[in-house]
């Protein structure tokens, strides 16, 4: 993926059918120093994504033509770019379906401009901050995490993770003895300072497990601690 050089303005693809909201979003984002490109329909979203190569996608769930959930899946199939959903319904299903389709985070309408900017900055900081990391290798179960190359490996085989999933795994790996509550993870990984929707954690832990676990039904990497939250699995060499 061709990263824009540091210091250049981050480019955000806004996919929303509401003209007024899209324009307002772009005004606010530009004011905050982002470049924006707007796409009004779901059908053209993927093409626009190819053309623009954005650093982040703001995606409305309700779109004419191709539905936001499908667009989200299309993009996630070929890219790890952060996706933030804009949802009008905070009802359980839509949000969970969107997150399961690969969205990293969501803001429900009506949201404050500052709230949106905070979410966008958190996701961008995460996906561009790899190089700031001090080189480090962490071990959970039988997989190793290399912070420098943003690489996760089981033996010799690379495991492809989105930046968010990488952050989630790393947060657990850094403090292998600690049990993380969902609220703590929300703060560490998503940057929420007040308790927010813990479904974010649940869905992304599931997605992460489907990639890193040998058997997602019996997780050994991201272990559930009943009633509290999650913790990292024991490193493989500590077991034997």
């Amino acid at each position, binding site marked *: 993926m061709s990263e824009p050089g540091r210091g250049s303005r981050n480019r955000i693809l806004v996919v929303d059918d*509401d003209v*007024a*909201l899209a324009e*307002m*979003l772009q*005004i*606010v984002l530009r*004011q905050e120093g982002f470049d924006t490109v707007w796409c009004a329909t779901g059908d053209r979203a993927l093409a626009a994504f190819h053309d623009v190569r954005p650093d982040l996608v703001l995606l409305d769930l*309700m779109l004419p033509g191709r539905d936001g959930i499908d667009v989200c899946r299309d993009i996630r199939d070929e890219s790890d770019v952060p996706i933030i959903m804009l949802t*009008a*319904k905070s*009802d*359980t299903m839509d949000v969970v379906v969107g997150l399961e389709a690969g969205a990293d985070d969501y803001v*429900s*309408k*009506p*949201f*404050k*401009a*500052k709230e*949106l900017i905070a979410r966008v900055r958190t996701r961008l900081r995460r996906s561009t901050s790899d190089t700031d990391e001090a080189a480090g290798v962490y071990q959970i179960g039988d997989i190793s995490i290399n912070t420098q190359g943003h690489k996760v490996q089981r033996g010799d085989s690379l495991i492809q993770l989105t930046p968010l999933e990488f952050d989630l795994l790393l947060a657990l790996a850094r403090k292998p003895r600690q049990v993380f509550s969902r609220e703590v993870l929300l703060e560490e990984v998503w940057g929420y300072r*007040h*308790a927010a929707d813990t479904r974010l954690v649940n869905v992304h832990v599931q997605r992460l497990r489907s990639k890193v676990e040998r058997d997602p039904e019996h997780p050994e990497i991201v272990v559930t601690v009943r*009633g509290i939250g999650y913790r990292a699995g024991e490193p493989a060499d500590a077991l034997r």
Partner: protein
Amino acid sequence: MRAPVRAWLTSLPFRVIVSTFIGSVVIMVLGGFLLVSQASNGILAAKRQSSVQEASTALDRMQQQLRQSNSDSTSIYERLNQLANEVGAQAGQYRIVIQGPVSGYSSVGIDAATVPVALSVSVERGGGMYLAPTTVRFTDPGVPDEPGLVVGSLLYAPSVGESYPVYFIFPEGKEVQTLAVVQQAAATTGALLTIALTAMAGFVTRQVVQPVRRASLAAERLASGHLNERMDVRGTTELASLATSMNNMASEIQRQIGQLEELSRVQQQFVSDVSHELRTPLTTVKMATDLLYDQRDEFDVSAARSAELMHAELERFEGLLGDLLEISRFDAGAAVLTLDETDLANVVRAEVDAQRAFADRQGTRLIVTARGNTGAEIDARRVRRIMRNLITNAIEHGERRPIVITVAGNDQAVAVTVRDHGVGFLPSQNTQVFHRFWRADPSRTRTVGGTGLGLAIALEDAQLHGGWLSAWGRPHQGAQFRLTLPRQHGEILTGSPLPLAPLDLVTGGPSGTVRGEKP
């Protein structure tokens, strides 16, 4: 003792069977009695008639023979004896007893005592034939007595010029035997008929009751929501038409419920659509307002104030929209609990901490005390929202006096009270406070921007938990709201760990009434 009474009261077949049984027993007893008595009357009357006839024939013959034999008194005895033996041995149908001048002459084996005294008196007194029932006795003690008839008359001996009483004895053993057979037959037939009738009654009621039972079962299943339940329609009888009517009713109910469901679904869809359609422009307006509000320092005074007002009112509008959508979700029955084992005290403290900045701005102090085990199965988000609404309400009406929040628990429930010392309300208004958009004092302005739906939503949230939200208030003595939640979801609350009336209120008045629980 009680079981049959209960069966009589509850089971139609039982009632029909018992009634039929009793009825047929009565009919059979009466009928049998009538039959047997008529039969015996008939048989005995016929016997009597034939006895009299035979007796008179025999008497005539004896009289004739006696006339022809013109003998003296000695030979009369022989003649009589001869006659007695002759006639007595003749048919075996009757025996004879002749009361001679000196001694009696009887057919072989017959005891003369068979003739009742009353009859012999009547016969000896005057001519004619007399008839009486008797018990036939035999000289041989081995032969049992048997019932019989005695026909008595006088036999005139012309040679001697004297009359001798003659008695014809007709044993009725056969007739009595026949009657016994008839009686037994009547009894057996009666018993069999009674059983058959009872069984038939049972069978018929079953035939009638079974479909009715099926109908009531089907109706019950319909009532419990199985709207696809239908009855089998067999044949063309009244019962089949009952089944048809039931089925028609079920279809009609199903159609109407379907219609209502469709209406409700359309309504819900509409609310959902409205929510979506409203939220998008609201977001745009909000972002635009935020942008203008952030730059208000660069505007002139009136434009800056306008931006501020727009910003503030938009927040209020947003709160109102959010609350309306929440209420509509409750109304649609779409609200779902997300339960977790949580310490109520922690939830309360978290919300109080979140409200503290706001309370400080309003100049109100928030005091929290907790005691006992306050862990319970609750939806933390909803309980926080209840607390938010209660605290906001208390701050709004609390006249800047401290607000005391108390958390407590007992074995079956946890509770929290929010006590303010503000304007309060009338005791009679303790349910109205939960009404949507209700205001204690319509002239009072909303100072802190509550939507008027907060307490209504809090009540819905509490009831969704199977809990209580109750209010206590007195004008100028403040108010107390109490939330009680069951420790385990699904348990029925019977009491609360905290009284509804504030503990700090020491009044001598009759304030005991306020303890009434409001579910």
